[in-house]
């Protein structure tokens, strides 16, 4: 994209209501903007379109939708999808229950804690997931080695229950912290929390009332985007699950890709469309409620 360099200086002008004589520049700006957007559209749409073509185009039989029809009857599909959705729901609940009180406390009464919280919620970005897994698997290996005689052993066994591996929820909550922190921070920054809380308290509202009827409704957009980002993260998470030996959705896709390439691509498209749909629902819900209140 190097040849597009002049676009930045020029593109800014229209927003400033160009005076007469700048119209040539305005036209050039429009052209550059068109080029940038067209290039972006080409780059981002091509893989989506061609992978769809890939799934419906059988070299021998021509057009076929088999790849999509086979998904639902494929072995392990429902199971792995349900596992991923369950993990996502648990992660969202836990991460919001942990972060929201902490962020409110920081805003209302402990501003000095803000840098600490910021660092804690940025750490998972610094520590790559794969190193995090390396640490977790080391801890889990302690179980049989050192802790067999202690009550911790039962805990370690319990969090690794293959039916619902809580250890994944713990890991995902940590991984989701940066995203949730940012969404909620943006949401809280957009409302004057202190004034709202003081006003509500002065009018005699109890604390649960303040939280449920004042803070949370005003935070809907932030909570929605935090939940969505967490959901997207959990549904797409491969590293942790794979290296700890579980089989949620993304791991399952890789497992079947060896035997059925077309179907694995079909499922990939499916998961993207699903994420897209989810985001659209959440973002429209968020804006509608915001404008309604």
């Amino acid at each position, binding site marked *: 994209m190097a040849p597009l360099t002049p676009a930045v200086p020029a593109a800014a002008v229209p927003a400033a209501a160009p005076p007469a004589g700048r119209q040539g520049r305005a036209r050039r700006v429009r052209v550059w*903007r068109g080029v940038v957007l067209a290039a972006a559209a080409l780059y981002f749409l*091509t*893989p989506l379109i061609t992978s769809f073509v890939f799934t419906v185009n059988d070299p021998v039989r021509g057009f076929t939708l088999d790849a999509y029809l086979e998904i639902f009857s494929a072995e392990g599909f429902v199971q792995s999808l349900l596992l991923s959705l369950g993990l996502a729901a648990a992660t969202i609940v836990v991460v919001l229950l942990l972060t929201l009180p902490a962020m409110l406390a920081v805003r209302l*009464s402990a501003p000095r804690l803000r840098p600490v919280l910021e660092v804690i919620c940025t750490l998972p970005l610094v520590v790559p997931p794969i190193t995090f897994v*390396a640490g977790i698997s080391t801890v889990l290996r302690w179980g049989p080695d050192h802790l067999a005689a202690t009550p911790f052993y039962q805990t370690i066994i319990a969090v690794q229950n293959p039916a619902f591996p809580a250890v994944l929820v713990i890991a995902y909550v940590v991984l989701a912290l940066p995203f949730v922190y940012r969404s909620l921070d943006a949401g809280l920054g957009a409302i004057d929390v202190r004034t709202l809380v003081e006003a509500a*308290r002065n009018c005699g509202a109890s604390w649960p009332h303040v939280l449920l009827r004042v803070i949370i409704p005003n935070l809907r957009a932030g909570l929605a985007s935090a939940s969505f980002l967490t959901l997207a993260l959990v549904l797409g998470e491969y590293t942790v699950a794979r290296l700890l030996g579980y089989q949620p959705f993304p791991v399952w896709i890789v497992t079947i890709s060896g035997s059925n390439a077309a179907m694995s691509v079909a499922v990939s498209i499916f998961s993207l469309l699903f994420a897209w749909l989810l985001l659209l629902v959440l973002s429209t819900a968020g804006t509608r409620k915001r404008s309604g209140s």
Partner: protein
Amino acid sequence: MAETHPAAPAGLPVRTGGGNRPRSTGWTGALPLLAFVALAFGIPTVALLGGAFTADGAPSTANLTASLQGAYLTALIGSVKLSAVVAIGGAVAGTFLAQAVVTSRFRALREAVLTASGVLANFGGVPLAFAWTATLGNSGVLTTRLALGEHGWSLYSFWGLALVYLYFSVPLMVLVVVPALDGLRPQWREAAQNNGASAWQFWRYVGIPVLTPSLLGGVVLLFGGAFAAYATAAAMVGTVVPLVTLQIADALTGNVLIGHENVALALSFDMIMVAGLVMAVYLPLQRRSARWLR
């Protein structure tokens, strides 16, 4: 959420009439989070550090030395190079795209691009790898239609991987930089124009300096994302391109010489060091940009 209830009144000067209660009561709401992070994040980190500096049951730096030699070093350098290319390329492309969107008069376009960016920035991992394999892989649609294979094209290479990584890096950059571009006040541009500045001068002396922290912050974020990426590379190239994440995964799943089990942990430690260095640049920058853009 009950934790906040006793905590918050202490910080409301109106209600407490002076705030001379001990400040620590205000921390109660944050305690569950702090405790959780200490457990879920602290213990694995300590285990990792302990393991990285232990060989044959005794403290040693042998693992670390091994992790900085031979194939491991190649992988580490490969990862850093790939991440740098993706970070800079993604930042430049993402900024142009964001600027094109921000200055557009079509609100729908802006919403669409931001929504799409939100999705695509998280579209890393396995589905991304398969979508690109289907497009430009050895039997991909474009590869076979355009006979790219005969021209020496291979997706399973350094540049192929960079192309794929940009797919989630550019949208991430858009998400990072759009608020910063929105924060450029029209008044600043008007003031510059009234003083006779050209568009170029405006950007050179006002726009870019104000944006620099966000831009560099974006570069760092993209670097971190590409550096840490494992799923895409694993599902796409196997071990053709040497990357440190692939080496760690290999070592963790047992493909390693006897006595080198802890090398995975040492490699992880190397990764954290690189990522930590990069973050040390990012945090002060973000604080600086926040000063202007609020």
